[in-house]
């Protein structure tokens, strides 16, 4: 993957968020630069959930933060509604940015430990100096909307709540700002397994009740599939594949997407679909193929080529460009799904599955 191009961008007039050729780079040490996001394009329709999928170090969190201008991207444009955020002055940005809110990975770290729940949820109101009579009522309403009993949690502090409850407080706090776009950065990965489902269901319900568009950033393929309409797969700051989430399991083509899917325990066997045994590629037990290249000095051409079982010289020489391979399905790869149709299905397999099963 690791491709560029804008083929997956849509033209609908009512897009709530458009990110255009966004680049995020961080200087480190002398003259060295971390290429966190290199030329990302994305758009979001009203009521849509875009899932961004990738491993740690793929730039998905940097992308989420850059969209919120925290910090501003190195280059590229981000437009929220009709307003372009990238050119705004600090003061204008304060207001414009509040139309987007973010849910972060660690709910406990996201809440000021010295505050009570009611103050945490009302923080947005306090920042903007709102102090109407309906303040308490709207805090209560929002707490109820996220499944917390206002009477119980009203005066509690974060350390008196469980992780799931803290995440609900974070969601309530974001909702109080009445945002258009909610960016969720790994919102369930630090929660207990039994609590993840609560939060995922809550986010889904909230999105509908509050007319939100959502960007959902995560590393867990099943979680992303569950909540998203559209999935974007990132690798080392580049987009590999964009596809409707329903097709994630069976239609995803990019070697990296397949690798992510086959990493799900219990999915190895499923990847071995009967109609495609001829193209099996072994992922060896050896660690060499697992090394993520340094984002300081990403590979030329396709950035995935160092781990890709299909890589050829072409991949090193030329960067693949996004192209359409199906309805709403876009791909940046030189090798899979050649346009004339009978592309080989690719299966990434391990030779060690189900050792004990």
């Amino acid at each position: 993957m690791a491709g560029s191009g804008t083929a997956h961008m849509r033209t609908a007039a009512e897009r709530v968020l458009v990110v255009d050729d966004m680049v995020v780079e961080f200087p480190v040490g002398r003259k060295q630069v971390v290429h966190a996001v290199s030329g990302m394009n994305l758009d979001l329709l009203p009521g849509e959930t875009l899932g961004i999928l990738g491993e740690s170090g793929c730039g998905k969190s940097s992308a989420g933060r850059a969209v919120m201008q925290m910090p501003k991207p190195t280059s590229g444009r981000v437009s929220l509604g009709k307003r372009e955020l990238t050119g705004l002055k600090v003061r204008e940005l304060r207001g414009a940015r509040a139309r987007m809110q973010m849910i972060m990975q660690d709910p406990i770290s996201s809440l000021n430990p010295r505050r009570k729940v009611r103050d945490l949820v009302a923080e947005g109101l306090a920042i903007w100096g709102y102090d109407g009579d309906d303040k308490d009522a709207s805090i209560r309403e929002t707490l109820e909307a996220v499944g917390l009993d206002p009477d119980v949690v009203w005066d509690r502090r974060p350390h008196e709540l469980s992780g799931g409850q803290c995440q609900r407080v974070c969601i309530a706090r974001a909702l109080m700002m009445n945002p258009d776009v909610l960016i969720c950065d790994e919102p369930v990965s630090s929660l207990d397994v039994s609590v993840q489902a609560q939060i995922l269901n809550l986010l889904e319900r909230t999105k509908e009740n509050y007319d939100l568009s959502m960007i959902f950033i995560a590393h867990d393929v099943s979680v992303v599939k569950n909540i998203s309409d559209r999935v974007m797969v990132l690798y080392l700051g580049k987009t590999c594949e964009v596809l409707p989430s329903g097709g994630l399991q069976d239609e995803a083509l990019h070697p990296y997407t397949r690798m992510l899917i086959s990493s799900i325990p219990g999915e190895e066997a499923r990847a071995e679909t009967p109609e495609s045994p001829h193209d099996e590629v072994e992922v060896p037990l050896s660690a060499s193929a697992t090394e993520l290249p340094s984002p300081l000095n990403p590979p030329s051409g396709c950035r995935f080529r160092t781990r890709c079982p299909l890589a050829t010289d072409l991949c090193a020489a030329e960067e693949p460009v996004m192209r359409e391979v199906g309805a709403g399905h876009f791909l940046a790869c030189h090798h899979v799904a050649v346009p004339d149709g009978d592309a080989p299905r690719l299966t990434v397999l391990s030779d060690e599955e189900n050792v004990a099963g």
Partner: protein
Amino acid sequence: MTEHVLEVDDLHTTFSTPRGLMRAVDGVSLTLGAGETLGVVGESGSGKSVLGRTIMGLISNNANTEVTGSVRIAGQDVHEMKPGARRKLWGPEVAMVFQDPMTSLNPVKKVGVHITEALRLHLGLNRKDATERAVDLLRQVFIPEPVRRMKQYPHELSGGMRQRVVIAMALACDPKLLIADEPTTALDVTVQKQILDLLATLASERNMATILVSHDLGAVAGRTDRVAVMYGGRTVETSSTSRVFANPRHPYSEALIASIPQLRDAPHTVLRAIEGAPPNMLNPPTGCRFAPRCRFAQDRCREEEPLLRDLGERDVVHRGACHFPLEIAYEGVS
């Protein structure tokens, strides 16, 4: 499987904290034969990590900790031993792999030193033999260019590579029992599977008993013979892995399996969440600890503690701690 590598009998680990007694492990019994793999699944506060460390003898009786019951490794009670004798057990009999490879490795020691140290201490090898053996071990955990890696420092390796080094260290003295505590939680998804596969391969090659402690049901599903589901410091269900996943009898196991999003489900499938949060172990609920979150809980569940009992039919071993075990067959993961 008459000779058990590990026998744990009615183990309790209690910490006295400033806010009261915490019964982190509250009556767990299990046995493990050579070459067998046991998955211990649970959420935070279920006591799974404390269980692993108590079996290891890393947690033992002291001013703030009370361990009762017995842990027998190779026939010897770990908690009856003197600390010196226990140290001799670590390495040749039992070894452990922790969650975060970076904290298990000393940042100022080279990879080679980490591994040869154990070899020279426990097996009395000289420098040359130990080095040869260490290179061999690195090769066994599929580390490319093992000779060069011996001279590197931990920070020069990636997370997956470090965990491989930690595994090589654990294997150095050929332990009969390996306890892996969340060995992949700190790693990337694509690396997690490789480490789990590696552990499974090594265990079967060496006929080594393994305990895989994890919160990740998927990690345990395909790679263990048996599984013990823990909740609130107790085992709530235990049986062969395929049975627990295909036919969970305890409502907690069933709900836990059902709450995880599956790749094969359509987008926006409403997940069956378990309401509430794991119990506060300083003040656990009376009766069944899962009762406050259980869909099927009745008055009896809130009053009377269910004991772990046999639920299997005829010769199938399937034990659960529930007054009203489920009868529905759930379409399994594995």
